[in-house]
């Protein structure tokens, strides 16, 4: 269905090709998962399938890409619209109209299909994707999962044979991601569509994949094969696979179910060992009180309270994970803690101060927030200038931010434009800027959005160091695996109220939505990460010797 024949892609002004000599065949009816680090060329590979590379992006493509027998050299993306449906990263930015039904029809209108055909296909697509209820709704009113399904529907109406998706679930909460993946699963099984998707959150998709394509980046050769083959030694792997590697299971399990069936022996082996506690260690030499206190906090927009009486305390050295559905009030709580939102009743104290009453100049010494889009914090034209400006803002010795950034993300050219950094580097730059003023409370809103496993590991280390240095950290996140790795306490917010507050194992192990894969495999034992298991096993071995 899709053939890459000795394909290399070089963008203008780039010293080296992004993809070099890719040979790849994706047969009809497969769900093919493309994995790789950020910046490795995943997106370029996906965009080459429908001709956006090179027709839209520029650059040079050598070799040949054949899609359903059509050569992308002489077919522009628009000429492939009836063969390949392409869904970009952010569904909202690809919408042309403003109502669900019109959006579904847009592609067909461009192709000039007769109106009876359009009418019929729109109805079919509405049913296929479960969008019939939403047909007259404005696109901006939909939830993330619904928007993503509309985006998929809007390319399906032209009846393509191939669906290409770039990180369809990275911005979604676990349940919305399930919704989208179930839809894709159905398209592959019921319609025999060929689906190619790139995704960082492997734990969500790898069990559905028939084939995995690993794009290692740095123009190293692209590998492809069955998921079990590729993941054996891939540098990026979901926790279930890592646990499989630790336990030495062959072939590697891809889903919780597979692993659970193999895990009997491992559970017996682990039964006598003690799980690590996942609680905060007391900060050495600190006698200070809590870094943040909220009491019966109510805040909201207009007449709707989003937070309905939240009372909690955050101490120095804690890493608190804030979890809950989209719209449950996570971001609002962070905004209230940082003074961007005034509570309508109740009390917020951060580092002994009321954040909404602080002048911006003083605020950053008490609390710092890395927003969901870290680029919002950045406005200078180079990384170096950004750091100098941050020193000035914080009133600290010049060079402080640079040094922090070097430590968090080494080897970045300071003359680079912040927009050219990778997601992970941009996040660390924003974090360095926030940390320059040494606020006792550091807040992060969805920090792992768009981060690959390597960048995530780096973030985990950074957060642990910060906690050890006595910062209190709150992160709002959907990423259960990150929470399992790093959090010392978990708060679950639902409908503006605190429904759970406790140590990480206590809250997540028994929860169907928030349990990490390892906990699901090894329940009722309270293991959270493959690393914990590996360390415990290694310890037991040394003791027995």
């Amino acid at each position, binding site marked *: 269905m899709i053939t890459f024949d000795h394909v290399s892609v070089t963008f203008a002004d780039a010293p080296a090709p992004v993809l070099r000599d890719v040979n790849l065949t994706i047969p009809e009816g497969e769900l093919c998962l493309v994995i790789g680090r950020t910046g490795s060329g995943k997106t370029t590979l996906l965009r080459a399938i429908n001709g*956006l590379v090179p*027709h*839209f992006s520029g650059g040079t493509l050598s070799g040949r890409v054949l899609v359903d027998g059509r050569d992308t050299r002489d077919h*522009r*993306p*628009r*000429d*492939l*619209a009836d063969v*390949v449906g*392409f869904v*970009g990263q*952010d569904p909202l*930015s*690809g*919408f*042309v*109209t*403003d109502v669900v039904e*019109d959006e579904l*029809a*847009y*592609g*067909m*209108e*461009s*192709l*000039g299909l007769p*109106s009876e055909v*359009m*009418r019929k296909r*729109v109805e079919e697509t509405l049913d296929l994707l479960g969008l019939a209820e939403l047909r*007259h709704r*404005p696109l901006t*009113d939909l939830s993330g999962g619904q928007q993503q399904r509309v985006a998929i529907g809007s390319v399906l109406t*032209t009846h393509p044979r191939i669906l290409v998706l770039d990180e369809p679930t990275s911005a979604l909460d676990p349940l919305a991601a399930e919704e989208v993946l179930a839809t894709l699963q159905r398209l592959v099984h019921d319609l025999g569509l060929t689906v190619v998707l790139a995704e960082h959150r492997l734990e969500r998709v790898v069990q559905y994949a028939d084939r995995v394509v690993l794009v290692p980046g740095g123009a190293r050769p692209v590998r492809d094969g069955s998921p079990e083959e590729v993941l054996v030694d891939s540098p990026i792997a979901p926790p279930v696979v890592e646990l499989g590697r630790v336990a030495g299971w062959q072939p590697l399990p891809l889903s919780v179910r597979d692993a659970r069936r193999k895990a009997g022996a491992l559970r017996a082996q682990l039964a006598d060992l003690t799980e690590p506690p996942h609680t905060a260690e007391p900060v050495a030499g600190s006698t200070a009180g809590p870094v943040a206190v909220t009491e019966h906090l109510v805040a*909201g*927009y*207009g*007449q*709707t309270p989003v937070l309905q009486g939240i009372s909690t305390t955050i101490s120095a050295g804690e890493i608190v994970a804030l979890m809950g559905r989209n719209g449950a009030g996570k971001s609002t709580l962070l*905004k209230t803690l940082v003074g*961007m939102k005034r509570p309508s009743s109740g009390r917020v104290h951060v580092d002994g101060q009321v954040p909404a009453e602080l*002048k*911006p100049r003083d*605020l*950053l010494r008490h609390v710092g*927030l890395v*927003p969901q*889009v870290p*680029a*919002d*914090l950045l*406005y200078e034209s180079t990384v170096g200038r950004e750091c100098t400006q*941050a020193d000035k*803002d*914080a009133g600290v010795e010049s060079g402080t931010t640079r040094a922090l950034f070097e430590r968090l993300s080494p080897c970045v050219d300071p003359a680079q434009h912040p*927009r050219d950094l990778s997601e992970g580097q941009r996040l660390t730059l924003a974090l360095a*800027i*926030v940390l320059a003023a040494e606020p006792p409370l550091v807040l992060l809103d969805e920090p792992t959005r768009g981060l690959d496993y390597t960048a995530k590991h780096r973030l985990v280390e950074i957060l642990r160091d910060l906690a050890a240095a006595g910062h209190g950290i709150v992160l709002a996140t959907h990423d259960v695996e990150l929470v399992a790795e790093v959090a010392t306490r978990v708060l679950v917010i639902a409908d503006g109220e605190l429904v759970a507050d406790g140590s990480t194992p206590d809250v997540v192990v028994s929860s169907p939505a928030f349990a990490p894969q390892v906990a699901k495999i090894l329940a009722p034992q309270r293991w959270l990460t493959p690393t914990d298991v590996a360390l415990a096993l290694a310890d037991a071995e040394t003791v027995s010797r």
Partner: protein
Amino acid sequence: MRPQHLVTFPRNLHPGAWWLWALGLAAAASRTQNPVPLLLILVVTGFVVAARRSNAPWAKSYGAFLKLALIVIAIRIVFQAVLSSGSQGPTVLFTLPEIPVPSDTGIKLGGIISLEAVLRAFYEGLQLATILCCIGAANSLGSARRLLRYVPGALYEIGVACVIALTFAPQLVTDAGRVRAAHRLRGQTSRGLGSLKRLAMPVLEGALDRSIELAAAMDSRGYGRTTDAGRVSRRVTGLLVFGGLLGVCVGVYGLLAGTSAGWVGLPMLLGGCLLAAVGMFFGGRRTGRTKYRPDPWALPEWLVTGTGLAAAVTMFVAVERTPADLFLASVTQVPPVPLLACAGILIAIAPAFLAPPLPRSDRPQTAQPQQLEVAA
């Protein structure tokens, strides 16, 4: 008879009909400064909006336009009554402390405020406010964006650009708010020229990124695939259409101003229409696009358009017959009631009953508490 022709069959009226109806009323408003017919037009638009608006977000825009209209009136009064020396009359209301300004400039600061000046400013402001409210009514009954779907094929690209601009403008405002909030986190106050630069960079970069994304999405969904035309034919149709539209504009101006030479009015309008129609016919032939579920243009559309047109025509006739009733010689007299003009305007209230009722799902739900804007 097709059900679309029934005025009782629930459906959305063609947005074009609403706009023509509202433009008819606006044209009527533009020919009078008598507050009686002007206020009547306001009442008529408000009544029809209340009767036939949907629960879509843009349906609330009538209120916004009404507020804008009040601001227009206030500004007009302040500027004309307080700052202009030319328009004062003999009935002095009160005297403000005056700052002397050379008399030949026509400007004053403070001084006497006369009833005549205030009333004249009020009447003139009311005229503008009424026209604004007509546009607001059109926008809330048939959204501008839905109207853009019916842009003729020859102007399709311009229509798409307008739709995208309509989407991006609110997005820019949200982005700016987010970025400003983020700057507070860096310890910066959002004041001064420097903050504008800091704000502009991320917002514009974000907008640029989004437009590129959108262009890629449109390209991969087949935008422009069926448009095939040589450069010459494209130029010729473009020239015809724009020449025609220019003619229409001049013609409409001539007709509404009512003061220019005879050839500027109706003949120019008709000539422009003809030219534009020819251009659009040839331009429309070159696109192979089709339209999904176009709103039908049936009897209710004709009726609604007709009532708007009737209001305009009666007003024009009334101005011909009794100009003194519609442009008051002395603002202090009690405004007369121009019967003919008022009757015409009252015809235009009929769409509240003649336009088909909305389908149940589109009706505003009054029983439930008002739906609040979801926090961004």
